[in-house]
């Protein structure tokens, strides 16, 4: 355990646990509750105390159904708590499933990076759980399958660790999909990401003609499967173009696709299949080192303590869909992975499968990629006869019938695409969220960073040079926006409590330091956040700016008066 002390330092300020309230109710069996704990090398007593506290709070707040607790936000009829702010920590709660809770404990510190928005943290919890369910089914079902927890623990452990460790970095400026594990420190979404909304999809804006072509392609794909129902998701770069899935499933698959399947996600490893087959890439080593460092304990808890029939058999296969660099492009255009393979190294790998929330059905996941175009197709396992063979027939059909259309669509979309900064609006740094459709659009990350930095590029329009002496204030606007969003979140949850089903209009304009306007507008389920730096000081200017933006880019949704 020599390393563990170092590790505690490393992971200081961050704990994440998953526990089941139904388990370990008897004295001496409390450990049974814990399904996952990070960092794993914390002494069990510490782990238990964290969980105990959380459990206590949950039970306690449940007693007060309907009554607002000091700092407990009550948001659902269940009246469970969302967050508890202590002096040094914030406890963020997420009830993933009935009686299964995820709790994230983050340290409050004076460091500016540690300014986060609770809702953003909760969305992390939500996301990791949704993805987990998509790949493995619900935690409860895994528990039911293996009441000892021998199945769910390794799954959770691998999955969450992959999730935390493996978010790879896209570009130096891109803090959206930041890796949570920078170096050895888990980096949580901070105020820097307040112009981002996790758990939403980003859509490509297409013209009618292109949209019709895309739909035509989608229908052809559907028909390739014959009579089997088929769902599809079409992405261009990492933007959604079309979906036939329910909103929740769309979000999950979209998230996964952006993380692992989109062209840029594959790009990093280009055609290095042979190199990959050796099994280790740099990032995996990094991840592995974290795992290794917590080795003894995790081994003990997640492996050896396993009392299942498979007891002690560590090697039983745990599918790790979030592992990095495991997808590569096959010769037929379909993406292939060995993640689902029965054994690593066998050439014919099993086809990936996912669970659909909408139908609660297990589906084959097929991904086809042509240049920037990614097609994700889902076929119900039950309706494809002969398993893999049947699937390969369908795949062949797709290549035969649809490849011409795909070429056409790809060409059309790339012609119409404005590039990485297509959705940049000069002078604005914005986030637009459509809560009804779970769609968001934001200023490109590269542009948002110009807010946080001393101006690198003097030519950068709209945002004139920042005074370097005001260095401390450089992050001011984003921090203000982050705080403002916190307020809006609070207001929103109150609204849900007050009058469910009735959206309220909300408009807040704050004059921040740096001559900046920080603005939040919500109306009928849509939210708009923006930062206008170096802006005129009159409020009229601010509301004009919103009006203009609304008319141009939101078809007037925010210009109601």
């Amino acid at each position, binding site marked *: 355990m020599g390393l563990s002390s170092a590790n505690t330092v490393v992971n200081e300020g961050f704990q994440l646990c998953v526990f089941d309230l139904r388990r370990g109710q008897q004295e001496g069996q409390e450990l049974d509750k814990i399904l996952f704990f990070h960092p794993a090398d914390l002494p069990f007593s510490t782990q238990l105390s964290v969980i105990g506290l959380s459990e206590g709070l949950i039970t306690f707040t449940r007693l007060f159904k309907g009554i607002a607790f000091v700092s407990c936000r009550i948001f659902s009829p269940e009246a469970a708590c969302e967050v508890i702010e202590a002096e040094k920590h914030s406890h963020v709660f997420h009830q993933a499933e009935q009686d299964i809770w995820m709790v994230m404990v983050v340290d409050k510190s004076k460091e500016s990076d540690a300014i986060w928005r609770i809702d953003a943290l909760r969305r992390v919890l939500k996301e990791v759980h949704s993805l987990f369910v998509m790949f493995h089914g619900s935690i409860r079902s895994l528990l039911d399958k293996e009441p000892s927890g021998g199945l769910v623990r390794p799954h959770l452990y691998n999955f969450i660790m992959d999730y935390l460790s493996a978010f790879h970095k896209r570009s130096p400026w891109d803090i959206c999909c930041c890796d949570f594990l920078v170096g050895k420190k888990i980096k949580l979404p901070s105020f820097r990401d307040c112009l981002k909304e996790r758990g939403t999809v980003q*859509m490509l804006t*297409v013209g*009618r*003609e292109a*949209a*019709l*072509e895309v*739909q*035509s392609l989608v*229908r*052809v794909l*559907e*028909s390739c499967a014959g009579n089997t*129902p088929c769902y599809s998701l079409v992405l261009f770069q990492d933007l959604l173009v*079309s*979906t*036939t*899935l*329910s*909103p929740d499933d*769309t979000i999950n698959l979209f998230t996964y696709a952006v993380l692992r399947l989109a062209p840029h996600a594959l790009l990093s490893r280009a055609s290095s299949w042979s190199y990959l087959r050796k099994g280790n890439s740099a990032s995996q080593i990094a991840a592995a080192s974290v795992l290794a460092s917590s080795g003894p304990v995790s081994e003990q808890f997640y492996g050896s303590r396993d009392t299942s029939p498979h007891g002690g058999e560590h090697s039983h296969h745990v599918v790790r869909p979030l592992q990095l660099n495991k997808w590569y492009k096959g010769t037929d255009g379909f993406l292939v992975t060995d993640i689902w393979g029965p054994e690593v190294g066998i050439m014919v790998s099993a086809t990936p499968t996912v669970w659909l929330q909408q139908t609660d059905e297990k589906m084959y996941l097929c991904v086809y990629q042509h240049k920037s175009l990614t097609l994700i197709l889902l076929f119900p396992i039950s309706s494809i006869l002969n398993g893999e063979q049947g699937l390969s027939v369908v795949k062949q059909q797709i290549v035969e*019938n649809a490849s011409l259309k795909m070429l056409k669509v790809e060409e059309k979309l790339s012609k119409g695409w404005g590039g990485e900064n297509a959705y940049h609006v000069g002078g604005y740094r914005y986030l637009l969220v459509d809560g*009804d*459709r779970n769609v968001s659009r934001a200023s490109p990350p590269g542009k948002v960073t110009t807010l946080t930095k001393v101006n690198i590029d003097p030519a950068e329009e709209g945002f004139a040079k920042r005074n370097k002496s005001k260095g401390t204030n450089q992050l001011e606007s984003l921090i203000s926006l982050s705080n403002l969003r916190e307020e809006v979140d609070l207001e929103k949850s109150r609204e849900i409590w007050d009058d469910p*089903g*009735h959206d309220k*209009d909300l408009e807040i304009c704050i004059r921040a330091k740096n001559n900046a306007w920080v603005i939040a507008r919500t*109306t*009928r*389920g849509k939210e708009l956040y923006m930062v206008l730096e170096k802006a005129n000081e009159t409020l009229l200017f601010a509301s004009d700016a919103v009006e203009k933006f609304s008319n141009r880019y939101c*078809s*007037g*949704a925010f210009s*109601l*008066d």
Partner: protein
Amino acid sequence: MFGKASSSQLSVSLGGSGALSHVYIQHPPLRCSIPGSKGLFYDDGNKLILSATSDQVFSWKTVPFASHAAPTSDSISEGPVLSIRYSLDSKFLAIQRSNHEIQFWDRETGETFSQTYRSETESILGFFWTDCPKCDIVIVKTSGMELFSYDPESKSLHLVETKRMNVSWYVYTHESRLILLASGMQCKSFTGFQLSSAGIIRLPKFEMAMAKSEANNKPVLAAEDVHIITVYGRIYCLQVDRIAMLLHPYRFYRDAVVQQGSLPIYSNKIAISVVDNVLLVHQVDAKVVILYDIFADSRAPISAPLPLLLRGFPKASSSSSRTGSKDTDSSEANDMSDHETIIYGDNWIFLVPDLICDVANRLLWKIHLDLEAISASSSEVPSVLDFLQRRKLEANKAKQLCLVVVRTVILERRPVSMVTRAIDVLVTSYSNSIKTGSYFKGIKSEKAPTPSVSSMNISTSVVDESIRREDALGKSIKHGSSSGVENESLNRSPDFPVSDPEENVRLENSNDHHSLGTKADTENFTAGETSQSEVQKLSSQSQLVGPSSSPLNASISENLESQAISASISPDEMYSFVFASVEEEMAGDPAYFVAIVVEFLRSCNVERIKVHPNIYVLTIQLLARHERYAELGLFIINKILEPSKEVALQLLESGRQNIQTRKLGLDMLRQLSLHHDYVLLLVQDGYYLEALRYARKNKVTTVRPSLFLEAAFVSADPQHLAAVLRFFSDFIPGFKNTADHTTYCRILNEMNSSIAA
């Protein structure tokens, strides 16, 4: 009404002939037997069938084709008759008396004069009248071609021009205005002229290909081996190569003659007909006919060779009638001689373009296409539709067939790709007809007032009368094909239930169209005459033209005329006769149907055709019914379903179960600037404050204040109610004196006092 219409359309297809044939002749034929007749002649300039006795000429009009047509007669002097032709204005009658003499009658005055040649070295091969501005009549002799004009002063012919050359024989058709003069040992060198109203065009000399049978035996091309045909306004010449058993089509351009592939033949005797731009190659010995649609590059026949069918012959089966009908005692059958129905008998002469003359029995048959049979014979739906869309003669029938075909393939859930191609065909055809304006012509006549059913018979006779009237005016060339169409539809009418409103509309159309015809057609005619360039533009849209060569056009007027009604199907008709009816019958998963609709929209978008919102509404209903709201949202956001008030209202309706969809509808109303509806709906949803703000901003004053007040009252918030009251008091002059104001002031007071208490 739709249901009714569709059922009648189905009966069209099902009620089609069960016999295996694609082409038929309809009994009864036109009987042109006159006692003492010396022979039958065909005047293709005036489309008359002529029968000459020793002192009279009887003529029957073949257009419109009617079996009961009565002949008109002219007296002539006695003598041999080699051929007879009326002048195009019907004022003169010309009779070729011998190889050296042609005699002319002025029908008004009865005066005669003759054109005679004394030379022994040359003889007259034939003559024809022309509407070429330079001359009135062309006489073809072995020594060349002479062009004459009639000089009313001297009452004689005046030689305009002579084209000297050796001529073995010639072929001419009036519809193409093209004359081909054959010369040479094998008679395979040709000189061509087009003598159209635009002037004389001399075609380049060309040779026809002839296969050699043996080394020294050179076959000679005969006049009956060369056929000039006109399809889609293009002129072709078909040459029969008996040795190679091939039929060579040559296409005529102003500056070139191009051979375009060759068609196999299976008989030593070949006859050619053209019905509604479809080429019929009668394999006379084999007693079958092969159909070609020389539109695309493909030279494949439309369908397999099948016999010609005699339809409507009063016997149980037409096949037995071929062998004779001695044992029938029905008076009708006795009426006819038993050998008159021999199909492809030796007595048959095929007249341009679509008539068959049974010389021995003095009968004239008109050839018809059996569109139902043709469309039923092929499983290649897109090409069938393509074929049907090009049919002009029975445009309405073709249109109904197209609708039936499309509906069937959708109901049968044929592969989307195939249905897509079928839809593309229809949409492209519609787009073309819009561009050429023919669709609107059809519409115009369809929009004609529709009197009651009982007027049908009366108006039928009106048609006949007007035709006769036109005859008298001598515009007989003109009304040719248009009245052909009408006649067709009239003939067809017994097939349809009389109660069917659609049919009545159609019948009335034709009448209306026709009674207008005399005047309008003349206008068309002159317009067509003067602006050839325009016509070329029209026809070039449907042609595959070599870049440099401008194609020769056939008779301009006919070209215009034939486009009057087109088989193209508008998106509205697609909706009501295909999508709406199909959707009713298709239960279950909407994926297939949505796929078809998407393809239809895509196709329309490519052709830039506007689609009526009802198809969008239908799609929304369908998606909403199957709770595919995510896709629905995508369709709306990407404007695949274009915004309109109908769409917005349907979204609101379908959004009762799905708030997101409802919001899409609201947003659409706002984006369409339908302020009143938007405000009203906001109030209904309880967003009365937002509604007020919006109303003030967009100056909506049409929503009653009481609605806002009521909504505010329901929300039980006295502050809001007060705000709303105040708003109206401030912005609506005189509001304080209304009953609403007093009522809600009282309510507000009550609310306040109850809170205070």
